[in-house]
């Protein structure tokens, strides 16, 4: 009776899909592993960079030049007591960091790290990223609510307002890219950039780029827009009541968020994994550098933005809440809208010429 069910022609799609799922799972495992390792060492990179900017050494004790410090930190957080305030709303308190972390990690699925290496090559990649970054705000808001602490509550509210306000200029700043590329698929956007000066959208979309970079700082809650976790005002903001690995999830989520935002910037404005064309033009060096794998270029560009995050953090003070809102609504959104109009007009004009 089984022959009726397990026929070769029915078996084959099942096996194929099982294999496909297996490949996807392996891909996910690789990406999650590598991403978490990057995140761990991003903290090390941050502490070293800012340390040297501030005439000190940064971590130096654990391992040679403190290279094992992130691992020690991770272990410490794992073994710490998980303190939950008595008056906290327990269920929500438990799931808030999971929501935040999951939303951040899920965004990794659509990012093309190099050619043809992307877990889910979906048509609406860019929208998916926005959806996920908005979802992360839920984690922040409900963690602030569930802690039942006024500092956490204020931090959560600030964050909700901030993420909502900056989602808009961020989305609008990328509309220019969408118009030029004619696609929301991130791989398509990278490929579409090849026909433009330097192989980047940076030059035609300079307005969008500037708006995006500013909004990216606000979206990830980093200095100078680190109001939700303003240490000197709200102690630590929304995660003030969290400890142990729940705290670590927020921490990791924030850093994954930084990587995601940097990756979007790289994919949409700096040509993703491709080699910048002005380098290819240089004799000899261009030939050598064009052989460098795409993932290296991608990481180099991403780490440029990560470095920018740290550099800014070591340089500037923090904006005030009302000023943050004023920048978002009064400057960034009009500029982003103007960028859309200009991009649209130029596109029409170019089409008309053709």
């Amino acid at each position: 009776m089984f022959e009726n069910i397990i026929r070769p022609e029915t078996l084959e799609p099942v096996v194929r899909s099982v294999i496909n799922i297996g490949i996807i799972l392996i891909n996910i495992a690789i990406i999650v592993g590598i991403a978490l390792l990057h995140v761990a060492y991003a903290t090390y990179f941050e502490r070293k960079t800012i340390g040297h900017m501030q005439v000190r050494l940064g971590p130096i004790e654990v391992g040679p030049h403190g290279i094992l410090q992130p691992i020690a930190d991770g272990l410490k957080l794992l073994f710490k007591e998980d303190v939950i305030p008595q008056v906290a709303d327990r269920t929500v308190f438990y799931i808030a960091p999971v929501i935040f972390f999951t939303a951040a990690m899920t965004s990794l699925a659509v990012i093309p790290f190099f050619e043809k290496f992307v877990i889910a090559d979906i048509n609406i990649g860019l929208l998916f990223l926005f959806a996920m970054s908005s979802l992360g705000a839920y984690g922040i808001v409900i963690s602030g609510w569930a802690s039942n602490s006024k500092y956490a509550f204020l931090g959560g509210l600030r964050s909700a307002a901030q993420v909502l306000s900056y989602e808009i200029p961020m989305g609008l700043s990328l509309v220019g890219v969408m118009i030029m590329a004619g696609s929301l698929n991130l791989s398509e956007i990278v490929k579409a950039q090849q026909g433009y000066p330097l192989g980047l959208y940076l030059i035609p979309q300079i307005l969008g780029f500037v708006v995006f970079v500013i909004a990216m700082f606000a979206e990830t809650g980093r200095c100078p827009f680190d109001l939700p976790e303003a240490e000197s005002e709200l102690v630590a903001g929304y995660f003030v009541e969290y400890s142990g690995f729940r705290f670590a999830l927020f921490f990791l989520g924030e850093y994954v968020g930084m990587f995601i935002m940097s990756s979007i910037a790289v994919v949409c404005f700096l040509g993703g994994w491709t080699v910048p064309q002005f380098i290819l033009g240089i004799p000899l060096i261009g030939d050598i550098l064009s052989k460098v794998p795409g993932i290296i270029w991608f990481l180099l560009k991403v780490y440029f933005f990560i470095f920018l995050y740290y550099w800014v953090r070591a340089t500037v003070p923090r904006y005030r809440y009302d000023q943050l809102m004023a920048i978002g609504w009064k400057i960034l959104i009009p500029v982003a809208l103007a960028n859309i109009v200009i991009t649209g007009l130029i596109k029409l004009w170019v089409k008309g010429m053709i």
Partner: protein
Amino acid sequence: MEGINRNQPPSDIRIAPELHTREITLNMGPQHPATHGVLRLVLELDGETIVKCTPYVGYLHRGTEKLGENRTYLSALPLTDRLDYVSSMNNNIGYVVAVERLLGIGPPERAKFIRTMVAEMGRISNHLLWLGTHALDVGAITPFLYVFRERERIMDLFEGLCGARLTVSYPRIGGVRNDVSQKFLDDLYAFTEEFPGRVDEYETLLTVNRIWLKRTKGVGVIPAEDAINWGLTGPTLRGSGVRYDIRKFAPYDAYDKVEFEIPIGYNGDVYDRYMVRIIEMRQANRIIRQCIEKLPKGPITIDSPFTFPPKGSLSRKDKERFNKDYYSRHFTLAKGGPKEAPQGEIYVATEVPKGELGFYFISDGTGRPYRMRIRSPSFVHTSALPRLCEGGLVADVIANIGSIDIVLGECDR
């Protein structure tokens, strides 16, 4: 605050009349990272706006005034180290100057210059710490690390001078504890050569920084008249444009023999108070250089029952007289000093980095004050905090606390 009714929503947003808004009460401190010690503020917030701000002090009360009544004038000196532990040198000098006025004695010329010099070092070290923490509160982390680099050098100089870094107890009634060495002067001179460049470095990060300007300009404004009425002193008062500095108007030590300018602000906001302190650091540096250049030779203590003249500073005739009562004087000093002092009361104020530090003594003729009252600038400035904060945002509270430069050890005494 006028126009805020506790039970009614503001009139312009009466969309749903059955909904009532209410301020939340936020307890900030006494273990909050930005309240500079153990200041506790109870804030009533309407959203992010401060409706009411009530400071509570006393978490670091150690009864310094009462302790002073139970000690002789000599042995109460180390108590003043613990008032404003950031600039203990200036507190010591304030105390010593007050006691000297009470006793009717004064230090010799060399000691005056040394005191002025170390007082200005204390001022620089205090303003450096203030700058670092103030900038840190507003969100700039790097100046904090930069200022500690220079502060460390001043601490090292203090250590070389008297063995202590923080609680120095270096000045003495009628002079200073020990003479300065040539190495100390050389190191200090090298520091003064370098220091203006370092101040430029801090200013590069802050003075023209767009975000810093936005956070400090027009925040915590207090006009000159109000500033005087609230009893503000020091840089906090001068930021409002009042030209008042005890060093200039009632000079003590060698302040009448050195040249310096009093920086004043115009708007009385956080930024002006910041600029006043930055320029004060440069002026302090200038005073130190003049003190080194003008440092006269001579004894460092006077010959009085309260002091123990160092060897080599006495003339032959004095030495003979001194040797005669060497042991009795040594005994008296080791037991805390003479048991008699002129009767009367006196209030003497000096300009410490934070403002006007006043010591008020009532002497009943015994070797201990009948009453020792300390007028501490931090206490007075804390009382003006609600005036500065109300109507502002939560972030402004932090900027204001930083800009009035309080230390709770001095506030609670």
